[in-house]
């Protein structure tokens, strides 16, 4: 339940979906990952915590972390308020365009959460 958007020049921005933030409830903490960490597809990047749940955030493509959303350190509620906007979590660089292509698009995802 994550979203990724391409920022161009192999840069991508990642966050969690509105559906995911609703499931988690009030977010109280987002772990700030290390910049520069190189990860392969499916590895955990960071953890988002509410009072009742903790959810790992996985990187959907091979890549390395370039930027983290420092705002979340003091205002984790941004993830609830604007999950697809100011509540983004990290940016990473990846050369694996094919991995990006194979992710669900928004319409597919909307269909997916309807079914589940």
């Amino acid at each position, binding site marked *: 339940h994550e979203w990724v958007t391409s920022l161009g020049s192999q840069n991508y921005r990642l966050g969690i979906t509105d559906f995911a933030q609703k499931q988690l409830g*009030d977010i*109280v*903490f987002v772990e700030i990952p*290390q910049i520069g960490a190189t990860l392969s597809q499916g590895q955990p990047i960071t953890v988002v*915590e509410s*009072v*009742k749940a*903790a959810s790992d955030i996985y990187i959907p493509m091979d890549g390395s972390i370039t930027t983290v959303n420092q705002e979340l350190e003091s205002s984790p509620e941004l993830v609830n308020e604007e999950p697809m906007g100011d509540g983004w979590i990290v940016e990473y660089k990846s050369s694996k365009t094919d991995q990006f292509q194979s992710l669900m698009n928004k319409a597919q995802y909307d269909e997916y959460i309807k079914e589940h």
Partner: protein
Amino acid sequence: STKQSIFQALDTFPKRHIGPNENEINEMLKSINTSKLSKKNPNSLEQLIEYTIPKDIRLNRELNIEENKVIGENQLLKDLKKIAEKNKVYRSFIGMGYYGTITPHVIQRNILENPGWYTPYTPYQAEISQGRLESLLNFQTMVSEFTGLPMSNASLLDEATAAAEAMQMCVNISKSKGPFAFLVDKYCHPQTIDTIKTRAEPKGIRIEVVDSKDFKFTEDVVGCIVQYPSSNGVITDYKEMADRAHQANALVVAATDLLSLALLKPPGEWGADIALGNSQRFGVPLGFGGPHAAFFSTKDKYARLLPGRIIGVSKDKQGNSAFRMALQTREQHIRREKATSNICTSQALLANMSAMYAVYHGQQGIKDIANAVHRKAIILAEGIKRLGYTVLDRPFFDTVLIITGDKTDMMIKELESRQINVRQYCSKSISISLDETVTSADISALLNGFSAHASKPLGLSSPEQLEKETSTISVISEEFARQTPFLTHPIFNRYHSEHELLRYIHKLQKKDLGLTTAMIPLGSCTMKLNATTEMYPVSWPEFNSIHPFVPANQSLGYKEMFESISNMLCEVTGFDGCSLQPNAGSQGEYAGLMVIRSYLTSIGQSQRNVCLIPVSAHGTNPASAAMVGMKVVVVDCDTNGNIDVADLKAKAEKHKDTLAALMITYPSTHGVFEEGANDICDIIHANGGQVYMDGANMNAQVGLCRPGDIGADVCHLNLHKTFCIPHGGGGPGMGPICVKSHLAPFLPGHSVVKGVGGERAMSAVSAGPWGSSSILPITYVYLKLMGGQGLKKATQVAILNANYMASRLKDHYKILYTGSHGLVAHEFIIDLRMFKESAGIEAEDVAKRLQDMNFHGPTMSWPVPNTLMIEPTESESKYELDRLCDALILIREEIREIETGKADRKNNVLVNSPHTEKVIVADNWNYPYSRSKAAFPTPATVASKFWPTVGRIDNVHGDKNLVCSCPPLSDYQ
């Protein structure tokens, strides 16, 4: 009964332990009405059980406990006293983390021996737990100030397991993928080193035990541990070592002693990242090893990696300061195999005693005690020197190391003949640790003992003489001396007179709902009676004043009791061997899986590392499996909540070459005796695995069926659930394990006390050889007083009570899962999920509304989100069961008022609950319902009202703004 002798005891126990009387039992059976199922034994307990527990696993005889003799409560205590008197209460100066202490009587009587403090549960329902939460916050504040590290938890199980937790925390902080190494100073307490090694091995952490001077911080080293002061008493300057560690990105752990820190520089000031130790000598009796509260503190930045429960400050709905358990997402019930630790139950009652000891004495009082202990050690050292012995010439706090050379054995015997225990440190030296109980006569007795074999002809001076002559000697130099103040918060400075402390203890107690107020229907927690007769022996000096490492011939009474308990627990479970060492259910799981691991290794099957765990399992199961390096594979449940046997079989077969174990809870966490439990065990065995049965629900089995007969190989028993040890507001607990004969050789041993565990014993899992020995009499008394018949009846009534409640509630709430005949086990789940849409009401609202009705809510949202799980236990009377049913039925009506639009969806009596006295008596009343509806909704509340002292707590605020030490005084009411 017609032939009953006039001398037959009348003060028998089963009728006191079991809530409903015979008439009530019959009435309840009729209302469940199993007679519609068959005509055999209509509406009897036997018939109820016949349709609850599958036939093929039922035990068709009574348990052989005490040959079912009927013993009265008073006679049993007399018999037990005789056993207790086989323990010899000598003076012990052995040290090693356990010291004599004076438990202030006001604390002994009003906390340790007070059901207001020992019967509540872990403070999950924070609004009715503010008293002990405040006290636990005092504990955290105390620990933080003594150790110089700001973030403290609210206790761990013992010093040795705390050290093992610290090691794992260093690994987690490192974020490295391994390999990992952890350095251990050889001057740590031996039981600590032992427990660290046990924990490290399955995780592949390399342990190096060397002198801390020789620590080599190679790249794989994530941390190191030193004892401060050392096990041999020496105070060492670790600053330079700590700097070296930090340069190499390794963390420094200090195992330490609170009392010494009154005089010594706190570990946080010389570079330690984590401090831990045993708070026992702050007023908690020795108890032959426990229970005591271990403390654990660290830097703020590591808060989210801290193991165990943390108390934090938040706000309630009205904006008042309120306490709660913080950052629960670290813990096993949420994080499962990714949790920081598997620990659940800790040592709340003992932590509260230690905190109260600090509140009572304050900074100056503790300083005085520490100074006195230290001066007495100086006096002793000087006296022994004058007798011609060599005393290690290094700075010490309370422990004197004497080089006794060839005379060592002789000296130990000499002192033992004078009823004094000291520690044989090595073959050529003795160490003596002094404490606040030491008198001038004790020093004289020690010196007299040494003078019997002295090289110098009696140069004996009196302790008072020595006091004068040593008054200028200082052994703690400037560099080690503490400069920073401690216990500065007003809480530690206003309750030093007994009246003030007494009132403070009672002020806190009044805020908490324990079994002294109402039933606590927590599913999976078995909040049954903690009988006074069971608690009595805990305070006997023959049980509570014995050091865990005394020679075996001084603890023969304990030995006899341990053997008796072990045999009884084996009879109850159908197993062949028992270890009393695990200090809580979580430790039992860990120990049980470690025993399985040792066994598999012994038969050349060490590659087996897959642990199957049903999705419905308690979070501790996967957390424990992770601790022993097993890979968790989750097994599905079917729509009836039972284990999906096809999925289990497929997964067992898929992993047949690597299957190590299945962890299964029986009856299931859904409160049902599943059919085919024995087939499930067969599937696991056929694929090379072992079956671990979680004993959390043992209260539904005792006397009716047995884990060993069902096919399990090992199970743990929560003595604080099924076997009457009180919950203590969040501990102590005990989690012994019972095993089949093929596993018995591997039961855990102990490095200090020989003869513990199996003949191929794995190393220790706890600091104490028998865990928390001094609370075992509770279980002993329970089993002996109930006998086989009484235990069986108790289980039958536990199942009856649950079914009676379910039958009364089933027209009002959906009972989520039942067995094949529509019956539940000893607990059941009511489904509230539909009310979220129909009324905007969730499980939490119902639980908090119950607080308005003098109740503690049932288990919330576990194992199924947005449901409540109710376990009444056999100890609740029909009156109390009806009271809870009435309350829940009334709440259903209140929900209906929202559903029908009679009450507002956002502003109603449920979402605004609980209502505090302050809210009710406020001059302004702006709610759309009456004050009496809010606070006095039931006849019982009109007759006698229990007030929640704070309103609904804001959990989000608390986790976002973490405050884990005492807030400013203005926040207290």
